[in-house]
C-alpha cells in the first residue's frame, strides 16, 4: 500500500513537471503564434487585440499555464488556431490510428522479440548465433530507413501490402498498418531479443538455478520457474520502456506512411505554429509515456518481492 | 590513569545512528602506542562503522576520536590536515580484490603514496622506499610491475599492507584483513603483521569475528554486541574467562575439543555413530 501511494505521488509529480515543461517550451519557442492566427495578413489592431484576448496571449506566463492546466484537467485543451476546432476532438479523432499502430508494434515486439530472445537464450549454437547476428544488424536500422526499405520491397516491388493510408474497417486497417508497424518495431524487436537472450543466459548461470537442478527438478520446471521467472524481471522492464519510447518514434513512421495519426499531426501543427494543438498532443503523448512507465514499475513490483516488500531481514 | 600522550588511539562516547537504527551506542576504548586491540563482534554489531568513523569516512552522531593525542572527530578541512591524519591512521580491508585499483601496478600505487607523504624525496629515493616496503611485507622486486589480478590473494593482501605502511602511520586498522585468506596464507600474513608491529612499533586495531586471530595478534580486546560494548580487558582475560553472556556464547561457539562433546551430547537415535 505504501508502495502504491508512493508511486501515485511520483506519477502526479511527473505529470505536473512534464506539463509545465511542455507549456514552457511552447511559450519560449521562436515565432509568434499571432502570425499563425492572422495567416500573415495585415489585421486591424482591434482584431489583433481581440485575438490576443481570446488566446490569453498577453497574460503573464504563469497565469497562462494555470488556465491551460486547469482546463486540460477538465478535458478542454483549447481550440486549434488553424481550424478553429476543439483540440480534444481533433486528438480523439486521430488517437485511434496511433494507438492501433503502437499496439500492433508492441505485439510484434513482445511476440517476435521475446520469442527470438528465448530461442537464442535456450538454444546455444546456430540458432543463437543467427539471432545475435540478425539482431545486431536490425538494432542499428532507424525507423525512417526501415520504412523506406520495407515500402520498396513489399509495396513497390512485390505489391503485397499497401504503402500509404490507414485503410477502412478492421481487416483493411490491419493490412494497411502492417508495414508501418514493422518499421516501427524492427529495431525494438532486436533490442528486446538481445536483452531477453542475455537475461536468460545470466539467470541460467545463477547459483539458485544450480540448486534447482541439484534437487532433481525436471529441466522444464527449472527453466520456467527459475530461469524464465527471474529473467522476466529485466525483460519486462526493457520491453515496457522500449514500447513506451515507440510513442515518440511513431511520428516519423506516420509521416512516412501518410497515416493520419497524432504524431504526424504534431509535426504538421508545429510547423504551422498551431500552439494549442502542439501542446495538447504533447501532453497526451507524455501522459501515455508516463502511464506506460507506471505500468512497467507496477509489473516490476509484482515480479520482484524485494521491490514490493522492501529489503529488510528479520 | 595513563597520560593521553601515551595513547595512539582513543575513542570515547562514540554514537552513530542510521535512521532509527543505533549502529554504535556509547562506545569507548583506547589503545596505547605500540599496542594492539581486538574489536570482536558478529556481523551487524557495529565494528565496521567504528572503523569508518575513525578513518573519517563516516561522521559520528556523538563522541570523540583522538589519534596521537589529536582530535579527528570533525571532517578534515585542508589537504595538509588530511595528509596528517593519513599518517596517523591507515586501514587494510578484508577484500584486497576490491580495495586495490585493478589498473594500477603495485609499484606505482606504492610510489604514489610515498610521494604524497614524502615530497622531499627524489625519484631514486622513492623507488628505494618502494623496494623497502615490498621487502618488508615479503613481496619481491618483480611485483612492482604486477597488477593486482596477476597476484594471489595473499600477495594482494601483502600489497595492501605495504600501501598502509607507506604512509608510516601510527595506527593501522585491520578490518577482517585476514578473514578471506586460506589457512596457510593466513598464517603467513599473521606472522608478518606480528613482525611488523615488533619492528615498527605500529599500533593495531584489529577488527575480527575470529577469536583465534584475535588471540594471536592482540594484547587487549573489546567485545561488541548490537552496537554496544559489552566486555573489555586483556585478550587473555576476555577469551579465557569471559564475563558477559554474549562473550561466553561467542567463545563456546568456536569449534574445538570442548565443542565435540557438546555437539555429541545432544540426544539422538543412532548414538553409537558418534563423532569420535
Amino acid at each position, binding site marked *: 500500500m505504501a508502495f502504491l501511494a508512493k508511486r501515485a505521488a511520483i506519477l502526479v509529480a511527473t505529470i505536473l513537471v512534464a506539463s509545465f515543461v511542455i507549456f514552457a517550451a511552447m511559450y519560449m519557442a521562436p515565432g509568434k503564434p499571432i502570425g499563425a492566427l492572422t495567416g500573415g495578413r495585415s489585421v486591424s489592431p482591434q482584431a489583433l487585440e481581440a485575438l490576443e484576448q481570446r488566446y490569453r496571449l498577453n497574460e503573464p506566463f504563469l497565469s497562462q499555464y494555470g488556465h491551460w492546466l486547469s482546463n486540460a484537467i477538465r478535458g478542454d485543451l483549447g481550440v486549434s488556431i488553424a481550424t478553429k476546432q476543439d483540440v480534444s476532438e481533433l486528438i480523439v479523432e486521430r488517437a485511434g490510428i496511433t494507438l492501433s499502430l503502437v499496439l500492433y508494434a508492441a505485439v510484434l515486439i513482445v511476440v517476435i522479440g521475446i520469442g527470438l530472445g528465448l530461442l537464442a537464450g535456450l538454444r546455444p549454437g546456430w540458432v543463437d548465433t543467427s539471432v545475435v547476428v540478425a539482431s545486431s544488424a536490425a538494432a542499428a536500422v532507424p525507423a525512417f530507413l526501415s520504412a523506406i526499405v520495407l515500402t520498396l520491397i513489399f509495396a513497390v516491388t512485390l505489391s503485397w501490402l499497401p504503402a500509404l493510408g490507414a485503410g477502412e474497417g478492421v481487416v483493411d486497417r490491419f493490412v494497411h498498418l502492417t508495414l508501418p508497424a514493422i518499421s516501427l518495431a524492427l529495431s525494438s524487436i532486436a533490442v528486446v531479443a538481445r536483452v531477453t537472450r542475455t537475461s536468460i543466459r545470466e539467470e541460467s548461470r545463477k547459483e539458485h538455478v544450480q540448486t534447482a537442478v541439484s*534437487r*532433481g527438478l525436471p529441466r522444464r520446471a527449472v527453466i520456467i520457474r527459475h530461469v524464465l521467472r527471474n529473467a522476466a524481471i529485466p525483460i519486462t522492464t526493457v520491453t515496457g520502456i522500449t514500447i513506451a519510447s515507440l510513442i515518440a518514434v511513431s511520428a516519423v513512421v506516420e509521416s512516412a506512411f501518410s497515416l493520419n495519426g497524432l504524431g504526424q499531426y504534431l509535426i504538421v501543427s508545429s510547423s504551422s505554429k498551431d500552439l494549442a494543438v502542439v501542446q495538447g498532443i504533447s501532453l497526451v503523448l507524455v501522459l501515455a509515456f508516463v502511464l506506460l512507465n507506471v505500468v512497467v514499475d507496477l509489473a516490476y513490483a509484482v515480479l520482484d*518481492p524485494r521491490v514490493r516488500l522492501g529489503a*529488510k531481514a528479520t | 590513569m595513563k597520560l593521553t600522550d601515551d595513547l595512539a588511539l582513543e575513542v570515547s562516547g562514540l554514537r552513530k545512528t542510521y535512521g532509527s537504527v543505533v549502529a554504535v551506542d556509547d562506545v569507548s576504548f583506547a589503545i596505547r602506542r605500540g599496542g594492539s586491540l581486538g574489536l570482536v563482534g558478529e556481523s551487524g554489531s557495529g565494528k565496521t562503522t567504528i572503523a569508518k568513523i575513525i578513518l573519517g569516512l563516516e561522521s559520528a552522531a556523538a563522541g570523540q576520536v583522538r589519534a596521537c593525542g589529536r582530535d579527528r572527530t570533525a571532517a578534515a578541512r585542508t589537504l595538509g590536515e588530511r595528509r596528517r591524519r593519513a599518517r596517523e591512521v591507515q586501514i587494510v580491508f578484508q577484500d584486497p580484490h576490491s580495495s586495490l585499483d585493478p589498473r594500477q601496478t603495485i609499484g606505482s600505487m606504492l610510489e604514489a603514496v610515498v610521494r604524497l607523504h614524502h615530497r622531499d624525496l627524489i625519484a631514486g629515493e622513492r623507488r628505494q622506499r618502494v623496494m623497502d616496503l615490498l621487502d618488508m611485507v615479503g613481496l619481491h622486486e618483480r611485483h612492482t610491475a604486477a597488477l593486482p589480478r596477476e597476484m594471489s590473494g595473499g600477495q594482494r593482501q601483502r600489497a595492501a599492507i605495504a600501501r598502509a605502511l607507506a604512509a608510516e602511520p601510527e595506527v593501522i586498522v585491520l578490518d577482517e584483513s585476514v578473514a578471506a585468506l586460506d589457512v596457510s*596464507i593466513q598464517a603467513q600474513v599473521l606472522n608478518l603483521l606480528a613482525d611488523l608491529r615488533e619492528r615498527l612499533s605500529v599500533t593495531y586495531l584489529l577488527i575480527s569475528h575470529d577469536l583465534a586471530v584475535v588471540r*594471536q595478534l592482540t594484547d587487549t580486546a573489546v567485545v561488541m554486541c548490537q552496537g554496544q560494548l559489552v566486555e573489555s580487558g586483556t585478550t587473555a582475560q576476555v577469551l579465557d574467562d569471559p564475563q558477559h553472556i554474549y562473550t561466553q556464547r561467542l567463545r563456546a561457539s568456536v569449534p574445538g575439543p570442548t565443542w565435540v562433546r557438546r555437539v555429541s551430547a545432544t540426544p539422538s537415535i*543412532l*548414538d553409537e*555413530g558418534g*563423532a569420535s
Partner: protein
Amino acid sequence: MTGSQPGTPFGVARPTSSASGPPLVEVDSLSVSIQVDGSARSILRNVSLTIGRGEALALVGESGSGKSMTAKAIDRLLPAGARQTGSISFDGQDVAKMTGAALRSYRADVAMIFQDPRVAINPVRSIGDFMTEVLRTNTRVRSRVAADRAVKMLARVGIADGQRRLEQYPHELSGGLLQRVMIASSLLTEPRLLLADEPTTALDVSTQAEVIEILNDLRRELGLAVLFITHDLELARTFCDRTAVMYAGEIVEVGDSSAVQEAPLHPYSAGLAAARPRVDRRLARLEAIPGRPLSAVEAPDDACSFAPRCVHRVNECDEGHPELRPLGLGMVRCIRAGGTALTEKDVNHEAHR
C-alpha cells in the same frame, strides 16, 4: 532409517566387508578437466573416496583444491564441457549412466546445501514455494500436505513459526535462518546423502554453532550420510567421522578425523593443523606453510605436488608422483610418511631448522 548403520570408520583403507555392507558412495579414480579457451584444464586428479551409510566424511582443503568440484561431480552438476574419467557409484548404481527420471530421483536422494543461502535460494519465490517445490513437482504431493511437511521440518531445524515463514521471501530472513530453511528443504525429500559445501562459512560464529548442531542431530536421526566440505580441520573433527584432505585436485590423506588433526600422516595436513592460530593460547609464531597453494593445473604429474612447499622434501620426492597408499588406519599420498612420524611437534621442529 533402521537399515542404515554408522559408517565404518576407515572405509577407504579397509576391505568393504564389514557389517554395514558396501558403502553408499564409491568414487573411484575420478579425474575431471574443463575446457578453458580450447585447452583442457585439469581440476580433479584421481580422486577416490567412499562414504558409508550414515557416515560423515569431511573434505578439507584450501581454496581451489577441488572440494566443490568433487561434490558437483557426485551430484552430476559439473559445468558444461567438463570431461570426466573414473567412476562414481551410489548404492551400487553407476551415476554416470543415469538419465531422465532415474537421474532426477538420484538427485532427490542426494541433497545439496551451499555456502551462501542468499544466492542459493531463488530470491523472487517465497520460502514455501522453494521448500515444497520438489515434493509438488516430482512426487505429486498435494500443496497442503507438502506445506504441512515443510512446517514440521522447519520445526525440526528450530524454526517454530514455520507457517508464517512459508509466506515470507528470502530477503526477509537472516542468513542463519535462511541456511536452516535450506537444510530443512533439502531433507524434505528424505535423501540418503547430504552434500554440504561449506554450509556455515557465510554465517556468524554463534550461528555456525547452531547450524552445525542441527545438522548433527538430524543426520543421526535420519541416518544420513554426509560429505561435509570445509577448510577448517577443527570443524571437520567436530562433525565428521573421517576426514579427507585435498591438495591441488587430489586427495593426499584420508583417516579418522581426530587422527588427521592430531597425528597427521601427510606433511600438508600437518602444516594445515599447525598453521591455524589457536583460540586457547597465543603461539610465539604460527607455523606457516611457505609458498602458496597450487592449483591442479600447475601441479606436476611426475613429482609430488606438495614438494615445493614441503619441509620434508628429499630427492626421491621429485622422482615420481606418490600414490595414495594405506598407512596405519588411514591412507596417505607421501613417500616419506610412516618412515618418520610427522606429528605436529616434529613438523615444527623441522621447520625451525
